C-alpha cells in the first residue's frame, strides 16, 4: 500500500498550464527525487501535493485518506486544510526560519501551538512543554547543532539554518518530508552538511520527496527518480534506469548537461 498517491494532477496559473496530468505514488520509507530544469513544474508539483497550491484538478491521497479531490468538494474545505498539511513536513529553498525565535524556538513553536488544542493541556501543561523542549533539543543534537540551540537564525550560516528548518519540519513527525531545492541557496561547502543530514534521514527510512538539482545526491540516495519536463513526467524509474540508461531523448539531453558541466 502506497503512503502517497498522486493522481492526474493538473495545475494552471491563468492560461498557463504548469502541471499536465501528473501521477505517481510513493511507498513508506522510500525516497523519491524529482529532477528537471527550472520551470518544469517540480516546485509547483510539490506545493500542490501539500496543498500550498490548490490543484486545478486531480486527487491526492495519503495512506487511505483522500486529502484532495477536485471531484469532491467535501475534501476541499479550508478549515480541514490545516490538519491535512500536517501529513507533510516542508523544507523551503529559502529556509524561512522565523527570525525572532532561536533555533530551538523555531523547532518548538508549532508543537507548542498544537499542544494547546489537546484536551489535557491545562492540567499537564508543564509536562507537555517540557516534553516538547526535550524533543527539540534531541532533534537539534541529531542534526549536529547542539551548541547552536539558543542562536537566532541570523547568527547561523545558511547550512545551519537549513538544518534547523529540517529539524523544525521533523518536530511534527510528518508522514512525508518534502524538500524544495533545499540546497539551491547554499554554496557548495554548506550544501554538503545539509545533504549529509538528509542522507542520514534516508538511512532511517524517512519517507521523502526531494526536488533537487544535486544529481549525484539524487542518484545515491533516492529509490525512485522522476524527471519532469514542461509540466509532465518525462521519465521515471530507479536511479540506475534514469541516470545510466535514460530512454527519452529529453532526459539524455538534460543529463548530459550535468555530466559535461
Amino acid at each position, binding site marked *: 500500500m502506497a503512503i502517497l498517491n498522486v493522481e492526474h494532477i493538473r495545475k494552471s496559473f491563468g492560461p498557463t498550464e504548469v502541471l499536465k496530468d501528473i501521477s505517481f505514488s510513493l511507498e513508506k520509507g522510500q525516497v523519491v527525487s524529482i529532477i528537471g530544469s527550472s520551470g518544469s513544474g517540480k516546485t509547483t508539483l510539490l506545493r500542490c501535493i501539500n496543498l500550498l497550491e490548490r490543484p486545478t484538478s486531480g486527487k491526492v491521497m495519503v495512506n487511505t485518506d483522500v486529502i484532495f479531490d477536485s471531484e469532491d468538494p467535501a475534501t476541499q474545505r479550508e478549515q480541514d486544510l*490545516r490538519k491535512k498539511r*500536517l501529513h507533510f513536513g516542508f523544507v523551503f529553498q*529559502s529556509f524561512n526560519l522565523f*527570525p525572532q525565535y532561536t533555533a530551538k524556538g523555531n523547532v518548538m*513553536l508549532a508543537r507548542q*501551538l498544537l499542544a494547546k488544542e489537546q484536551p489535557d493541556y491545562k492540567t499537564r501543561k508543564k509536562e507537555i512543554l517540557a516534553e516538547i523542549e526535550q524533543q527539540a533539543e534531541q532533534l537539534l543534537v541529531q542534526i549536529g547543532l547542539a551548541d547552536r540551540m539558543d542562536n537566532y*537564525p*541570523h547568527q547561523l550560516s545558511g547550512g545551519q539554518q537549513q538544518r534547523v528548518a529540517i529539524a523544525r519540519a521533523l518536530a511534527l513527525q510528518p508522514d512525508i518530508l518534502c524538500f524544495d531545492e533545499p540546497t539551491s541557496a547554499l554554496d557548495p561547502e554548506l550544501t554538503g552538511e545539509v545533504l549529509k543530514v538528509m542522507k542520514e534521514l534516508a538511512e532511517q527510512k524517512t519517507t521523502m520527496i526531494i526536488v533537487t538539482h544535486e544529481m549525484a545526491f539524487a542518484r545515491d540516495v533516492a529509490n525512485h527518480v522522476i524527471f519532469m519536463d514542461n509540466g509532465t513526467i518525462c521519465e521515471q524509474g530507479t536511479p540506475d534506469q534514469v541516470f545510466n540508461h535514460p530512454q527519452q531523448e529529453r532526459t539524455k539531453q538534460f543529463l548530459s548537461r550535468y555530466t559535461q558541466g
Partner: protein
Amino acid sequence: MQTIMEQMPIVLNSLNAGFLQTLKLFFVTLLGAIPLGLIIAFGSMSRFKPLSLLTKFIVWIIRGTPLMIQMLIIYYFPGLVFNNPIWGGGETGRFLAASVSFIINYACYFSEIYRGGIQGVPKGQEEAGLVLGMTRSQIFFKVTLLQMIKRIVPPMSNEIITLVKDTALARIISLQEVIWAGQAFMKGSQGISGAIWPMFFTAFYYLIFNGILTVLLGRLEKKLDYFR
C-alpha cells in the same frame, strides 16, 4: 511693566495646564489610532474588493485634505447642518471633537505604514507557518506581528513626533492646548498683556517632550535589534 522673571511663574503655570491638554490629546490619539489603523490596514488589504476600494477611498480623502479642515468639519458640521451639536459646548466638547479628528486622521496614516510593514514580511514566513499547521491568526500573532513591528518602528517614530506638534492644530477649534495658553498673554490674561514671549516659549515644551520620545523610541528600536 513687569520683567520676564516676574511674569515667569504665572506664565509657566498657565503653559503647564495647556501642555497637559496637549499631552492628553497626544495620548488619546495614539491609543485610538494605533488599533484603528490596523483595522483600516486590513480593510485596504482585504480580498473583498468593495471593502478594499471603500477603505482606500476614505484613506485618500483623509490623507488628501488638511487635518485642520477635517477638525473644523467634525466640530461644527453636526451643529450647523443638522442642528445637533453632538459634541456639547465647552472644553470637553472641543476635546472630544479634536480627539475624534486626530484619531481618524492618524489612523489613516498609520494604516499605510502597517500595510507596508505587513507586506514587507516575506511571503515565505506565512507559508512556513501554514506548512507547520498554524492557523491564520497564530501566524499573524506569533510570526508576522513582531517582524512587522520591527519594520514599522522607524516610520512610526516619525509620525509620532509629528503628532506631538500637530496637536497645536486643535487651536483652530479653541482647544486650550499649550499654544492657546501662550497666546492668551498677547491678548491679555492674568494681568499680563502684549507679551509674545510665552508663545515662543511653548517651543521648549515640544522640544523637550520630543526629546524624551526620541530616546524612548530609539530604545524600542534597539530592543528589537536581536533579530533580523
